[in-house]
């Protein structure tokens, strides 16, 4: 009896150790955001919360300036990041579900050619085509705009492939039943395909929102004014090159704030996700 209990404990111990290892840096960041810059700067950061939390967060959220440098306020950067991440996630889902619907349900000339064209773009990451993309966006006058931030990242072969694979599992009879019921392609899409794709959409939204939120290279290139700064590029710009000391307390507070939206999306969408899995009707 006792031995089995011990064996049961082992996985828990391993898991708890893993969680501690992953959580520790986040904990340090959280603690760091509650002390003043002097304490952090001396290198002796305690492992318990300090008293500067409220002041640090207020300064990061609304402040134009830290103790030593000028920044874009976090609220502006958060808004920019949110608009960009939402545009990318929703745009990718909209574009890819439509193109997957076309490829999976319709027979048209060059259908497989289009499918392979989409597929091939999988092999070209953003970084490879970044210079031509920049040229196009610049010529269109989209530098320093939300459209410039989001549109070039919206096309998605991965999401198209995922939706296509899911659509192929929808039985042909369902489409035929809908045809006999009198539903055209648009109605079938809205009334049947979209509701059946709910859980896939939710899962993709989580992944794509985080993908959009964490974009670094593209926003760095395509924004130059502080008003359009996203939070991920903003944080790196707060960290100086060594000529001056950094406002670590504000950087840490900003980092904690930057983590909140992705965490919120995961927590909120996970409930949908599980709900979709529990009353699965497929």
């Amino acid at each position, binding site marked *: 009896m006792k031995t089995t209990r011990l064996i049961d404990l082992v996985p828990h111990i391993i898991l708890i150790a893993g969680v501690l290892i992953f959580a520790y840096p986040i904990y340090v960041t959280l603690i760091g955001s509650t002390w003043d810059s002097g304490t952090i700067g001396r290198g002796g950061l305690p492992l318990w919360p300090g008293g500067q939390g409220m002041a640090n967060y207020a300064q990061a959220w609304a402040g134009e300036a830290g103790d030593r440098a000028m920044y874009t306020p976090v609220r502006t950067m958060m808004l920019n990041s949110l608009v960009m991440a939402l545009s990318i996630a929703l745009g990718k889902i909209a574009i890819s579900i439509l193109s997957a619907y076309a490829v999976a349900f319709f027979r048209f000339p060059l259908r497989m050619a289009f499918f392979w064209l989409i597929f091939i773009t999988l092999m070209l990451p953003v970084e490879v085509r970044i210079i031509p993309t920049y040229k196009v966006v610049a010529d269109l006058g989209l530098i320093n705009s939300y459209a410039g931030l989001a549109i070039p990242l919206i096309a998605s072969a991965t999401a198209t492939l995922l939706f296509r694979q899911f659509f192929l599992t929808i039985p042909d009879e369902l489409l*035929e*039943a809908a045809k*006999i019921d*009198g*539903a055209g392609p648009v109605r079938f899409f809205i009334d049947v395909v979209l509701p*059946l794709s709910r859980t896939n959409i939710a899962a993709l939204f989580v992944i794509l929102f985080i993908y959009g939120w964490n974009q670094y290279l593209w926003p760095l290139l395509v924004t130059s004014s502080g008003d359009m700064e996203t939070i991920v590029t903003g944080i790196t710009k707060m960290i100086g090159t060594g000529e001056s000391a950094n406002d670590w307390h504000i950087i840490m507070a900003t980092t904690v704030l930057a983590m909140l939206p992705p965490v919120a999306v995961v927590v909120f969408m996970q409930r949908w996700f599980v709900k979709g899995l529990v009353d699965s009707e497929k």
Partner: protein
Amino acid sequence: MATVEIRNVRKSYGPVEAIKGIDIAIRDGEFLVLLGPSGCGKSTLLRMVAGLEGITGGEIAIGGRVVNHLDPKDRDIAMVFQNYALYPHMTVFDNMAYGLKIRGIPKAEIRTRVDKAAEILELGRFLDRRPSQLSGGQRQRVAMGRAIVREPAAFLFDEPLSNLDAKLRTQMRVEIKRLQDRLGITSLYVTHDQVEAMTLADRILVMNHGVAEQIGTPLEVYQRPASLFVAGFIGSPPMNVLDGRIDDRGEAVLVPGGQRLALPQPRPTDAGRAVKLGIRPEHLAVAAAGFSIEIELVEALGADTVVYGRLPDGETLLVRMAGIPTVRERDRLTVAPQDGALHLFDAATGRRME
């Protein structure tokens, strides 16, 4: 309610001809069963009537109107699929109402029609459930409900009972029959199950390799099979088929082993001709003279008994006897066909000789 006419309908997939010219006029309110083995083209024919497959040649008319180029929704038909094809995310009510909603029928009328169908099919308690919360039989009833509420000119059934277990299949078969009697809607029903065909059909269209082997009432198809294929397909256990030759005077059939079976009417013109002789297992009975068999296997089914016998020349002869077995394996038995139980088929073409 309407007639369905199929005139010389053909279907080709590239060079492959799947349906080689089918002709049949289905009367208003008739229940026609398309029966055949898998791959015979019966489902393709049904799907051509539904508008889910293009028509390569010929014409299909529903209610006197040629529908070759009409979309499925404009053909005034409703279809029941083998795997039910219910919309998984909709309730039973919405599943039945969907087609009506699209057609812009007023809400109150939809309510009335669905309620009526639900009452006929005893689905009233399940209207708020999802298909996933129903059993196979209930799902198939919902699929039928979806067809009924449309009040179509014709019902098309594509092997609707194949996904159900044996007991439920028997029960649903009776329900379908009762429903069709009550509603009197012209129906086309595809199956490979001869029992379904025999019990449901007003007429059966037996198909093989894309051609109609025979069109007739269930009893016609059973009593006067038009070809060896039909003879072997209808009836369980299947008909015994022996090689034979009509004697020189055209009065009897000679079978290997020296048996001589008198023909009901002499056929002098066929004297000396090679034939296939068909005898149903249930039309053989113990007799003083006739086929002498050694019993190899006895299948006791309760109500009757199927005996697998071997003829002296090595051929198998099936005999179906009423009641529980009175013989045992390795027994010897002499059986003879009842009067008028012989079916003659041309040895070369397999067609029935009248």
